[in-house]
């Protein structure tokens, strides 16, 4: 691990947000204004029309989005180059802070996850924390919301294995809810209602989170040093990418995110945001102010707030608590989707959540900066349909021009001193747009060039430059697909239509061709039809559109090939898309990968029989004991006791169901009935007893087969 940086103690008054916000957004507006002026002039030259007004409005909005993005890059670049004291890690010398009496919970809310990966991430974090000597100040909680009975049983069994291996009995806890009310935010709320008052802080992790122990300790010390701070959000580094897509995403995250977040911190400062995980939260204000209300109206906008994080941060800020981005604190990691389709699935969920923020945007009492955070999130998804509308309007104008036979250039430029031809005028605007879009990438590279340790961490400037070029080519092809996806997500959400995607069909080495065809045939068709239309409209125009069209037409092979691990590994051998965590992996990630490899090599990965979890929970004497003990303990919580009673746990009806289960097999029961049986501790003990004591012929063949298989499996 790198040496601890020298802390420059700064005692400064509360920063002037107004001035920073004005400066930052004025820069974006100024740039947008100048370029929009040039664009309006170009449109004016060819004769004004209603469709040109629409095009101009769309241009202004879209350019403002990219200008805001570019300004994050520019401001972040200068801040990183010339240093800044305005980071929470530099405001006070927090490292000397005593945290001896401070208790912190590290929570992992999970929902039908790959439990091996979740627990190995937890193990890596736990062991890293152990090395700091501060382990006793932290408790770990696995907060399960899993609905799949097989997953639930596996979670319990592996949790018991984990605590035995780590000798972490009474240090790592496992709690499963009886229902999924409120999804992830409800899961965390349930934890807080049961144990929140025991902990001054809680760290929310995602299923794929890994935290360095020292970072966890630093976060607690930072909180202790700043009693007015309610939330510190770390900036997780994307790691463990293996496919080409995963490695490209990981590379862009590691190279570009630092300057973007530094830019974000410039205007947000103590009015930062919460991204839902890898953040430390002060429990008391969170419990007091951040229980989310139901939104009025029908789904998808009404009801439960899906993307709870932004709103929770806004509610904390409303009550004058501070939220900071600890963007210069290393040791916070997460993983990203490994294929374009998986990524789009995640985008779909986020899109719905962000659009729902439209209802909260004008809530009374929120801080203006919170509205900005919410608004930027919404804009991220509206940009797709707006870009599509821009391109279609542009096409319409050209088609109309062709159809009416009007000449393209009718008058001189409104800015005659530029002395530009129509084509040169259009080219100038295009070049400006490209520069603004590419500027953050270029600045990230320049910053890398000036930072020798970081340059080495990316494999050298030459490799990083090649990687940026390759990443730019890929993102150019990917962007039109995101445009189409986002448009679909926004439109379907606005009309309240749920888009079913089903499960990802994976080949051994990534996305299967058939699955890619099913997901992308529409994109390909749109690309081909649009391309044919553009070609007819004019070959010169067609060539301008090729980057957009190529992404669509090539979507199927692009999706399949970028999901390939082999191509990811090949790119790595060539030194492309290298990241600091690939070149010098931190101990936590080394341990995680090693343990995952052990699982991969030693565990049977063949598909399990249907209802394998039920068989295990009933037949395995130890798993049954764990399962029943956890269920019995729930009864001490009045909330769960009430839910048990409501479900009919302990009633004769459940015993009747379990008798039916024994004699008829699991298929005789509905999933709800099976779940009810598995939730009844008394019945589960009874089933274990009966399944082993009853003569085989009095039970369903499924049980006899399970007992046989179970015995053989144990023998093997």
């Amino acid at each position, binding site marked *: 691990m790198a040496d601890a940086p020298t802390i420059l103690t700064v005692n400064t008054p509360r920063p002037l947000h107004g001035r920073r916000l004005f400066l930052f957004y004025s820069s974006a507006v100024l740039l947008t204004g100048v370029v929009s002026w040039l664009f309006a002039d170009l449109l004016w030259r060819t004769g004004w029309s209603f469709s040109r007004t629409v095009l101009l409005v769309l241009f202004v909005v879209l350019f403002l989005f990219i200008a805001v993005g570019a300004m994050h890059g520019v401001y972040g670049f200068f801040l990183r180059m010339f240093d800044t004291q305005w980071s929470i890690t530099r405001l006070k010398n927090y490292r000397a802070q005593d945290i001896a009496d401070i208790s912190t919970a590290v929570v992992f809310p999970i929902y039908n996850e790959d439990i091996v990966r979740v627990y190995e991430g937890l193990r890596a974090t736990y062991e890293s924390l152990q090395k700091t000597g501060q382990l006793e100040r932290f*408790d770990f*909680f696995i907060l399960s919301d899993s609905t799949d009975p097989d997953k639930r049983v596996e979670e319990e069994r592996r949790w*018991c294995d984990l605590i*035995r291996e780590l000798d972490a*009995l*009474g240090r790592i*806890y*496992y709690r499963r809810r009886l229902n999924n009310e409120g999804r992830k935010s409800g899961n965390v709320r349930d934890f*807080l*209602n*049961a*144990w*929140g*008052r*025991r902990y001054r802080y809680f760290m929310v992790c995602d299923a794929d989170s890994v935290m360095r122990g020292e970072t966890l300790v630093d976060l607690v010390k930072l909180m202790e040093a700043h009693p007015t701070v309610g939330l510190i959000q770390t900036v997780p580094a994307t790691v463990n990418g293996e496919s080409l897509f995963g490695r490209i995403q990981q590379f862009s995250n590691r190279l570009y995110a630092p300057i973007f977040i530094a830019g974000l911190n410039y205007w947000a400062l103590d009015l930062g945001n919460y991204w839902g995980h890898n953040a430390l939260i002060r429990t008391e204000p969170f*419990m007091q*102010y951040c*229980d989310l*209300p*139901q*939104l*009025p*109206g029908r789904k998808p906008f*009404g009801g439960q707030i899906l993307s709870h994080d932004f709103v929770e941060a806004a*509610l904390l800020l409303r009550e004058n608590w501070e939220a900071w981005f600890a963007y210069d604190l290393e040791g916070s990691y997460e993983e990203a989707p490994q294929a374009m389709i998986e990524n789009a699935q995640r985008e779909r969920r986020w899109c719905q959540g962000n659009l729902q923020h439209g209802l*909260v*945007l*004008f*809530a*009374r*009492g929120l801080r203006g900066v919170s509205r900005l955070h919410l608004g930027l999130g919404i804009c991220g998804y509206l940009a797709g349909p707006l870009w599509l509308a821009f391109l279609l309007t542009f096409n319409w104008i050209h*088609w109309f021009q*062709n*159809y009416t036979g009007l000449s393209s250039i009718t008058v001189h430029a409104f800015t005659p001193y530029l002395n530009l031809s129509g084509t040169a005028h259009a080219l100038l605007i295009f070049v400006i747009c490209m520069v603004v879009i590419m500027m953050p990438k270029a600045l990230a590279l320049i910053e890398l060039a000036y930072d020798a340790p970081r340059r080495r961490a990316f494999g050298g400037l030459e490799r990083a430059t090649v990687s940026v070029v390759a990443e730019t080519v890929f993102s150019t092809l990917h962007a039109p697909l995101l445009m189409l996806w986002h448009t679909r997500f926004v439109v379907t959400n606005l009309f309240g239509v749920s888009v079913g995607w089903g499960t990802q069909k994976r080949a051994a080495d990534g996305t299967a061709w058939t699955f890619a065809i099913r997901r992308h045939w529409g994109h390909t068709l749109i690309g081909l039809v649009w391309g044919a239309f553009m070609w007819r409209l004019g070959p010169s125009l067609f060539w301008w559109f090729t980057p957009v069209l190529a992404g669509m037409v090539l979507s199927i092979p692009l999706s399949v090939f970028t999901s390939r691990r082999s191509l990811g590994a090949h790119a790595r051998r060539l030194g492309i898309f290298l990241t600091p965590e690939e070149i010098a992996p931190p101990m936590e990630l080394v341990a995680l990968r090693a343990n995952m490899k052990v699982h991969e090599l030693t565990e049977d990965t063949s598909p399990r029989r249907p209802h394998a979890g039920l068989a295990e929970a009933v*037949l395995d*004497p*130890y798993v*049954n*004991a*764990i399962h029943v*003990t*956890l269920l*019995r*303990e729930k009864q*001490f*919580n009045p909330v769960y006791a009430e839910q048990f009673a409501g479900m009919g746990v302990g009633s004769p009806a459940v015993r009747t169901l379990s008798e039916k289960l024994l004699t008829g097999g699991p298929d005789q029961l509905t999933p709800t009935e099976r779940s009810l049986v598995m939730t009844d501790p*008394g019945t589960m*003990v*009874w089933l274990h*007893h009966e399944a*082993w*004591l*009853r*003569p*085989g012929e009095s039970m369903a063949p499924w049980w006899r087969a399970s*007992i046989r298989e*179970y*015995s053989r499996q*144990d*023998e093997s």
Partner: protein
Amino acid sequence: MESAVNGIGALTDSSGQLAGRPLDEWNAAYEKVENYFHALRVRNKALLGQLVLRVLERAAHRAPTEASHSATQLAAEEMDRLVTEWFAEVLQESPAGSDQTLSTRGRLALLLADMPGRWQEQFLRPGPWPEEFVGAMRESFLRAGPDFQLSKMTPRPLDLGPIATLTNLGRIPYLRMVLAWTGFALLLVGVFWLTHGGFGQVKSSLAGVVDWFTQTYR
């Protein structure tokens, strides 16, 4: 082990039956008991055989008087009784209890004390047992969390401002009636426009589109 074999062997009669039951029946009983001990991860074959025979011997003694029960049933019951009695002794708890709490606790204690890994030879063996083993068994516990410190988070009202009005549009009285009137007004305007030159415009626009496509794709 020898005593167990001798014990059960003594119950074999001249017709080749064991305690009045055919050997096949005892074979099934053996398998049942062995499977359960397998499930408890008793992997030492010698120990496993010895334990199974102990159970079968107890079952064989009951067999002549309980003709209605199969050998498998008797063996399963004896296995359960033997294990529960042993748990009661080791954990110093009463074996009584209809909810099988002792059985659950005992199995959990076996796991947490690592009987399958460290103490296999102690399983079902009469006491005294090594102190470390007894300590590990008795101190075993499993908890989903620390002691509850219950509270209740309550959502604070959030005034959504003007948006709330939009979401409440559906609740505005006579909304449907107003929408119907608006639709009627739009229909009147549309018909008026079509009959005052609009129809010609639509017709020429459509013709233009058709012409363009015809010319382009000819």
